[in-house]
């Protein structure tokens, strides 16, 4: 019996012939008042206990911001006016998503592996909540990818991971300035012949700090005081400008 369990345990353990050891240039991004985007260097090495296997080694790196539910609306012409008609909820759309690969993404991972691990931008954009009267749901998720892609919030970076001697790899991911706070999951996949052979996951902590943190917390925890403070600033600024102008004129 004991021997049987031991065999099962051994079988359940994956054969780790190649493993990822990785690091980030920073695992914390602080959003300050003058935050203007950030570039993260992701680097690492492949650890092996056996000689290098045959075939090309590919590395795919993804960075994913917190998921949100978004509503994508489509305008239609009704009575001569362009107004929002159909709307589709996309349940788990990442607020930011970047995928960098060492080759063309379609060649480095198979369709099945891509789907299983939600690697490409298209697969990372989550489940679509379909209203019964909307047939072409795909065009709504494509629109989301297109609009966020133009804002650099979704990036598909092909041939962007540098792999040296089948062992060392590195890439740079540019985080835009309009980041949402949260934990940015960073995944690194090793692929051979389209199949994922190893993966590694870490996180980048994106946080507001200083004045940004203070104002955000105040607005959520003490909204009345925050509102009154905003009004006090407004009144003071209005009075101040008037007083200054009176001084200038006299």
């Amino acid at each position: 019996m004991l021997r049987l369990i031991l065999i099962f345990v051994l079988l359940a353990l994956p054969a780790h012939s190649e493993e990822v050891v990785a690091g980030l240039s920073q695992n914390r991004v602080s959003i300050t008042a003058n935050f203007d985007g950030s570039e993260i260097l992701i680097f690492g090495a492949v650890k092996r206990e056996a000689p290098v296997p045959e075939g090309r080694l590919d590395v795919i790196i993804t960075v994913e911001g917190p998921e949100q539910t978004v509503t994508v609306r489509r305008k239609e012409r009704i009575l001569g006016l362009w107004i929002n008609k159909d709307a589709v909820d996309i349940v788990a759309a990442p607020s930011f998503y970047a995928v960098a690969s060492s080759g063309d993404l379609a060649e480095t991972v198979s369709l099945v592996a891509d789907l299983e691990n939600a690697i490409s931008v298209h697969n990372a954009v989550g489940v679509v909540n379909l209203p019964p009267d909307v047939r072409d749901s795909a065009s709504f998720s494509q629109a989301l990818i297109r609009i966020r892609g133009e804002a650099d919030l979704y990036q598909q970076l092909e041939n962007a991971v540098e792999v040296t001697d089948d062992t060392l790899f590195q890439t740079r991911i540019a985080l835009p300035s309009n980041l949402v706070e949260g934990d940015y999951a960073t995944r690194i996949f090793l692929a051979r012949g389209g199949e994922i052979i190893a993966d590694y996951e870490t996180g980048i902590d994106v946080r507001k700090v200083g004045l940004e943190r203070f104002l955000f917390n105040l607005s959520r925890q003490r909204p009345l005081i925050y509102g009154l403070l905003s009004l006090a600033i407004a009144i003071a600024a209005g009075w101040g400008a008037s007083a200054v102008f009176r001084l200038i004129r006299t």
Partner: protein
Amino acid sequence: MQIYLPIAEVSVNAFLLLGLGGLVGVLSGMFGVGGGFLMTPLLFMIGIPPPVAVATEANQIVASSFSGVLAHLKRKTVDFRMGGVLMAGGLVGAALGVVIFNALKSIGQVDLLIRLSYVVFLGVIGSLMFVESLNAIRKSRAGRAAPKRHKHNWVHALPGKMRFRTSGLYISVIPPLIVGVFVGILSAIMGVGGGFVMVPAMIYLLGMPTKVVVGTSLFQIIFVTAFTTLLHATTNFTVDMALAVLLLIGGVIGAQIGARIGVYLKAEQLRILLAGMVMLVCGKLAFDLLVQPSELYSIGASAGGH
């Protein structure tokens, strides 16, 4: 210089915001409108999320109106009694407006309603004012005096009369109360101070002299928008203080300059300029509704969000 806005969660150029605030401030000081009907669409355009733009704009209008009203106080062109009556109506209207807004939001299409009401109100008021001031200018050019607006109409037949000394009026409190409620509703739904409706209503409906209209309108706008700001801050958490500060620094300075420019312009000229601006914004909004947009899709927070 880029600045990250803590509530809007976007990064924008600080000088752009200062400039926008200043520009709208000049107009607000000249015409006694809060400038919200210009600023709110401008903020959408530079990428501020609409809920944040609407709420923050209310806060900024408080500052520019306060600064403007001080300039008018010195010239004694504020009718406090009339302002108080309008304000009483305005606060009731703002509260009603929020209720209506939420009811419409649950149906969907609140976006379309806001746009359509902008187009209709701006269009009607803009063209009425434009025609009226053109006629006034033509008449004064011809050498005849402009007709006095103190006509006796149904407004004078209502009960509850009150003397408004600064405006030189002796009328019922009911019309100003109704105007106040109406403008309050509009300001909550459209995210504006409502000066562009209030100013013409005071001139044409209540028969107030143009000289006191601007100061009085600014006076009551302060209170209605302050109330709106607090409602947004406590229910939707969408007032961005950093955005407001930048806009209002530009805005209060602009409002002071605008109030001084206004002194040198004739009432008819002021009105025709305001009419032109109102019609311009109306035309832009109508254009957006009628012409096929380049991007048919838009991304919004889910209904459960903000």
